[in-house]
């Protein structure tokens, strides 16, 4: 006999598939862009900006080596002085959302808070992907 003590909230928080009524409605786990560029605190901003541009993005998520979300670089931050370190330029501690949040609820949140994008993370803060307003409109 085994006890999955962390329970279904842990499972949902990791964006894993479930069965049931709620599973029929799209969630952030289904729409989050997992190919969002990432960078670390000690990188040079100019290098990150170039890499992000080549990848066709205008946003980069700052993560720890364990992929814990630390900050966000949107267009404004990416266009700062090239010789700054990411840590100096980033927007720290962005609001994050769990993979289990419904797309319908996220639309409302993004409209209420005027968000263009937000990181989606597990319950322990690890990056799952980026949800963009344009992808759930």
């Amino acid at each position, binding site marked *: *006999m*085994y*006890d*999955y*003590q*962390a*329970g*279904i*909230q*842990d*499972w*949902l928080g*990791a964006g*894993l*598939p*479930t*069965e*049931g*009524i*709620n*599973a029929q409605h799209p969630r952030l786990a289904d729409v989050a862009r997992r190919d969002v560029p990432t960078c670390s605190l000690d990188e040079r901003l100019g290098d990150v900006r170039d890499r992000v541009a080549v990848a066709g993005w205008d946003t980069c998520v700052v993560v720890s080596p364990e992929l814990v979300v630390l900050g966000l670089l949107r267009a404004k931050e990416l266009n700062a002085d090239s010789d700054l370190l990411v840590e100096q330029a980033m927007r720290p501690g962005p609001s994050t959302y769990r993979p289990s949040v419904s797309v319908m609820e996220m639309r409302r949140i993004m409209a209420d808070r005027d968000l263009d994008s937000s990181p989606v993370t597990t319950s322990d803060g690890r990056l799952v992907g980026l949800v963009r307003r344009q992808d759930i409109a």
Partner: protein
Amino acid sequence: MAQVIDRETVRRLIEQGAQIVDVLPAEEYGEDHLPGAINLPLRKIETEASRALDHTRPIVVYCADSA
């Protein structure tokens, strides 16, 4: 005494054919449950477990969270 396991171990046990038991009330089970889980609410588990479960296979039980 049940052995506490993590998410990755649950995934591995599911692949190996373990029985997954959701002990939440039926309504919550209906909203969301782990793939392949059966519902045995806590208040019924003593009377129903012997009928519903194969004790020759691993059994994983779970609730909402650790609270």
